[in-house]
């Protein structure tokens, strides 16, 4: 077996080992993250005068959202009103998906 084929086999076995129901299921995290794109653009690129969220690191997004939510002195206009809806776990789930956009 060549290295290439061996690699693919391992990949395929890896997929089989994953719990089937979860593998492709659309998560609530994805749903919440997609909602960001209604303002920030379909790749989070921030078209026109909308700030980009594309180049944030995952931790940077978590920090920003948490600060919008918890810090009354943050410079938010509307993000404080959005961030107030989310738990720490939800903010992490959103950030994880946004950091994967490109």
């Amino acid at each position, binding site marked *: 077996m060549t290295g290439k084929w061996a690699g*693919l*086999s391992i*990949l*395929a*076995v*890896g*997929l*089989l080992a*994953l719990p*089937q*129901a979860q*593998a*492709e*299921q*659309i*998560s*609530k*995290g*994805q*749903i*919440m993250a*997609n*909602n960001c*794109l*209604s*303002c*920030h*653009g*379909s790749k989070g*690129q*921030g*078209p*026109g*005068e*909308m*700030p980009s969220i594309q180049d944030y690191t995952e931790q940077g997004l978590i920090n920003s959202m948490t600060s919008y939510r918890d810090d009354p002195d943050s410079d938010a*206009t*509307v993000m404080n*009103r*959005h*961030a*107030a*809806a*989310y738990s720490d776990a939800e903010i*992490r*789930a959103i950030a*994880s*998906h946004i*950091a*994967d956009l490109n």
Partner: protein
Amino acid sequence: MATQRFNSIRWSRRNVLKATGATGLAVGLGGGIRASRAGGATGKRVVVVGGGPGGATTAKYLRKFDPSVEVTLVEKDPVYHTCFGANWYLGGFREFERTRQGFDALQKEHGVKIVQDTVTRWDSDKGEARLAENGKLSFDRLVISPGIDFRWEDVSGMGPEDTEQVPHAWAGGKQYRILRRQLEAMDDGGTVAICPPTNPFRCPPGPYERASLVAHYLKENKPRSKVLVLDAKDGFSKQGLFEEGWAELYGDMIEWVPGSEGGVIHRVDPGNRVVATREGFEEHDVDVLNVIPPQRAGKIARDMGLTDETGWCPVDQRTFESSVQPGVHVIGDASIAGAMPKSAFAANNQGKMTAAAIVSELRGQKVPEPSLVNTCYSLVGPDYGISVAAVYHFEDGKIRGVEGAGGVSPSGAGDFFRMREARYSRGWFAGVTDDIWG
């Protein structure tokens, strides 16, 4: 955290398989389990009716969630003109062309099949939709995003044939040009009357943004003129913020008459641009008349029996599947969507949720828990923006606002804050049009 990270790694790995065309190989190696997992939605057909914010978003996100689903978008026009951003054109500081949206990216980048035609009827048991010109389309799921229709029977004295003289400008495109031309032709010292309808209607803050931006145009060009808002209601969206902005920017140029104080239209005389109120005892002889009629769900929804006694379409607010016809989803302005307003933003969000629900169900998977948002920006002036926001969840069978989140911009916030929100209003237009049609 660990779980989330793990999720995204799996997600990426699947994308790699798809991108390299190795899915077939994996099926070969993995056998039936892999096949059933990937095969859940393969070749399933979804027909989406209406290329506005709701329909176009659904079509795009169905393909984003699962490129193996065949998606056909049926839209009667070659382009779509937005209502959002079109009041800016009435205000004289935005090109009309910016409201025009095409379907090229949906087709070329997302693989949505675009059919320019009209769906005349369907049979949801057979999974077949009839087109006016191009025969029929088969579907496993049907999504209807028909927008609104006007209750002309509730406007005494005028009908759709009078909208060249008395435009509603509540559907994108030509109607806005008519209203703009009338504003341009009006002499200084004239009166523009705007007549907002009863609830519920498309874009709750829209008539008041319009009053603001017409006042902006008049202040710059015809400063002795006046805007008269004859309202069917006693209150409106973001009222405190609008009134604060009106006083700051336009003095007493805008007069708002609530329904209980003579705002309710009794009769319209379109030829003379006269509108009678107070059961006909008061007449307003104006120079530009904009009557926004009361509304209900788009015609096809009504013709096909999707509406209830309110004129709107009841749906399962988790999946937007019609409560009347299984397999048919209704989204956007036409649907009854709990606490969500009838806005392009809401339709866009509902489109994504509906796409996720349909893909999940076609694959035999659990529908993800709904999470929805809305932000309605309005311009009171070109550099003066305000907003209302909400985050929604699904609880006890309905879409409800998350407590403690959302709300309107602060009052007395100062010029810099208003200017930033004006910039974000324009940014939102760019963002949402990209998310819908880009």
